[in-house]
């Protein structure tokens, strides 16, 4: 460091050196999800071979899980902001009701559908307004609106069931095109749209920024409030879209008590798909695969004669385990080891880690020596013996030192106790 200008400093190479790495890709969360999906399929094949290969089975399985897919896609964006929306099931029913009422009154189907999606978007805007512009926590707002929206449906419908819906609703939910379920095709098309929206567009980047640091987003000239509102509106509109899938699944009817728990399933799928509930982390691929996993899992459990309520237990555990897995990493294991084996003494930990590394190196050298053909047998044996002795002595030394330290620690503690007690 000096007064003159550092013009002669070599220019640092900042370009990204690490390209695509297969080993990293293979253990990425998305791939893990695919392995799980394959595993479930293998289990199904092994246990119910005939059924699995019977025509229509796989399609039926996939179709059964697709009614929640638009909610999953919308929820990814919401979670990306670090918010949550538990009113989606109520919004979906609300949108279904609007469409149903329109169709019942004899309006053209298309108007009913548009109004339904619009109603969903409006519900989303309602949520978004309170979250973004009034600054209320999303959990509370959406808990309240989930009661409110469903409450409104209850007031309007009471115990009645709406039964007039456009005919394509059931088509979406139940038909296959060239052997592929139409609902899956629609899901993948929408999914591609969301991949672009979240991962390729400027809007998506804004979501990542807001999810990670909303204050910084504001200082970077991003309209945080508006973006949040838009995301909630998209979520609401997706609830409207979901109503098409849902009502179709239900065979074209809707009542005020239907669809409870869908919000939980959607959140569970997103979390399983690797979207962080703290915001700012995750991609679209994961939840898409997770949606399929959930469909296959639900079906498999159904085959095993597990009833719907008990399946909830499995869903609950999946949700918890999916969140826990990233937490159970080396760090946690190391800290557990420190606490229980090394009694919280970091010196002992360091010594043991060091010894373990040395022992490992020696063992490697033994293995090498064994393979080494250039040495005669006696030399080899003596070399191996030497290394083994060294391992032995190292381990003994380590053990002795550990014991010594542990004893010291105990004494220290005792002494400290006396000293503090005296105070």
């Amino acid at each position, binding site marked *: 460091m000096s007064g003159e*200008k550092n013009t002669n*400093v070599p220019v640092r190479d900042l370009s990204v050196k690490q390209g695509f790495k297969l080993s990293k890709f293979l253990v990425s969360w998305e791939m893990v999800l695919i392995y799980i999906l394959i595993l479930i399929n293998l289990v199904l094949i092994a246990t119910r071979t005939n059924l699995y290969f019977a025509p229509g089975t796989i399609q039926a399985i996939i179709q059964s899980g697709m009614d929640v897919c638009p909610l999953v896609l919308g929820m990814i964006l919401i979670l990306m902001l670090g918010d949550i929306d538990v009113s989606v099931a109520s919004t979906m029913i609300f949108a279904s009701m609007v469409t149903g009422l329109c169709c019942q009154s004899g309006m053209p189907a298309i108007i009913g559908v548009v109004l339904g999606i619009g109603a969903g978007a409006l519900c989303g805007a309602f949520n978004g307004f309170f979250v973004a512009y009034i600054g209320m926590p999303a959990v509370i707002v959406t808990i309240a609106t989930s009661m409110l929206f469903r409450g409104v449906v209850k007031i309007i419908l009471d115990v009645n069931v709406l039964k007039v819906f456009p005919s394509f609703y059931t088509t979406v939910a139940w038909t296959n095109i060239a052997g592929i379920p139409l609902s899956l095709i629609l899901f993948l098309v929408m999914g591609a749209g969301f991949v672009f929206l979240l991962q390729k567009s400027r809007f998506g980047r804004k979501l*990542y920024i807001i999810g990670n640091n909303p204050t910084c987003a504001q200082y970077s000239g991003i309209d945080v409030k508006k973006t949040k509102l838009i995301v909630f509106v998209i979520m609401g509109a997706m609830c409207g879209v979901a109503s098409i899938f849902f009502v179709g699944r239900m065979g074209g009817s809707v009542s005020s008590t239907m669809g409870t728990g869908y919000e939980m399933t959607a959140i569970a799928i997103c979390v399983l798909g690797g979207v962080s509930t703290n915001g700012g982390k995750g991609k679209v691929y994961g939840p898409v695969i997770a949606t399929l996993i959930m469909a296959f899992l639900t079906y498999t459990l159904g085959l095993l004669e597990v009833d719907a309520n008990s399946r909830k237990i499995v869903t609950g555990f999946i949700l918890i385990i999916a969140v826990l897995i990233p937490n159970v990493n080396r760090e946690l294991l190391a800290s557990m080891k420190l606490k229980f084996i090394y009694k919280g003494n970091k010196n002992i930990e360091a010594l043991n880690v060091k010894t373990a590394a040395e022992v490992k190196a020696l063992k490697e050298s033994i293995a090498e020596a064994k393979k080494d053909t250039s040495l005669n047998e006696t030399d080899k044996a003596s070399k191996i013996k030497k290394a083994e002795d060294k391992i032995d002595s190292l381990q003994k030394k380590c053990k002795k030192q550990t014991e010594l330290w542990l004893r010291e620690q105990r004494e*220290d503690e005792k002494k*400290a106790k006396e000293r503090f007690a005296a105070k």
Partner: protein
Amino acid sequence: MSEYILELKDVVKTFGGVTALNGVHFQLKRGEIHALMGENGAGKSTFIKVITGVHQPDSGLMLLEGEKITFRSTEDSAKMGIAAIYQHVTAFPDLSVTENIFMGQEIKNKLGIYNWKLMTKRAKELIEPLSKNIDVSKPMSTLSVAQQQLVEIAKALSRDARILIMDEPTASLSRRECEELYQIAERLRDEGVSIIFITHKFEDMYRLATRVTVFRDSQYIGCWDVDKISNQKLIGEMVGRELTQMYPPKNATIGETVLKINSISKEGFFKDVSFDVRKGEILALTGLVGAGRTEVCQNIFGIMKPDTGSIELEGKEVKISSPIDALNLGIGLLPEDRQTQGLINELPIYQNVSSADMKKFIKGGKLDTNAEEAKAIELCQKIQLKAKDISAPPSSLSGGNQQKVVFAKLLNCDLKVLILDEPTKGIDVGAKYSIYEIMNELTANGYAIIMVSSEMPEVLGMADRIVVMRSGRVAGSFDADGTTQEMILEASLKQDEGKED
């Protein structure tokens, strides 16, 4: 009894493979104020944590009153009369002052039920000598930073602390508050408390300490009597090399007025603030912390909207109601707190750099990542960012380099005016210099810079003109030539004191 109340010998502490302390020595005499200095990352914080028992040293000795001692938790050290007041005030904002003082050592009756009455009484007794206007029943969040620090001191005193560690206590205090703190520290010293005073400010050291210990790169460099070491030498020891010049030479030509602020006011923050800044000029906005400087900047940048007054950019009156407007008009802000306002620590550097103006990277509706990376590399090379590569997260960088990322983010926008709010706060001496170089290069390229700073030498060394604020108003403006520290100080303090009396 030994001469030293606390002594550390050859203390080594490693985290994984990183050595945080490498054979550090320290000796604290009874009833002395001992300054501990060193650049950021020199190991001061780890050292404090070793003393207070947050970390245990890998090897080395700690002697308390000549006797070997090992702390396994902060409770142990607290019981032995060691208290620390951390850099960021570690209080419970929603709890009352009383409760903050007694947290961890509550007064209870035999059933384990709190005795609130007695606690309140004791709290009052503790606070009174430190400050007359703290209401102990009020929540901590209603107090100013300085007052909160006094509460922390009261807390330490309530534990009969014999050794008090203060980690940069003056970092966010105004000069007057500093003076009050100095007096309290001196009184405590006279009462027999030994104080370890960690600071970046030489002023603190000269005013208070009798001895100073310097750490550099996790190592012990030396310990001197304060009156026997020159400022130059001390800086040299801290940085590890001699500083020939603290501020790089300027080579900008000053042009026409770019930004003109016409008596803007914001209720509760400032009133009738006017100044202007010209092309190629560095205008320093100084004064005490809390004088409304940051708020003025935030109003210009659109974080808040001024109640009255107008802002002119290149002769035209402009409306700025959000940072979006400001950036579009060519006004950028380098915020005071880069961790929460300037950086997204989880996203790669290039995404940080592009975040304030992503429009230019859109190609066919999608963001062109290659263009983003290319632009970010170009900008970061220009300001000599030290990073592994452009996709590394900012959290992996040092403070100075993090600040450079924020600079690059501003440079990515097409700006005319840069507002830099404490650009060198919390940055070590070496990195400061390169920030100054960047600033000079920017002015040479025609940027107008408004620099908020509390550091007097920085203001005098860098600015062309100086505007001093005092409790929400402009108290005076000076040309840098011929202005002295005393003149600025006088302007920022004068009336303030008259009002209190």
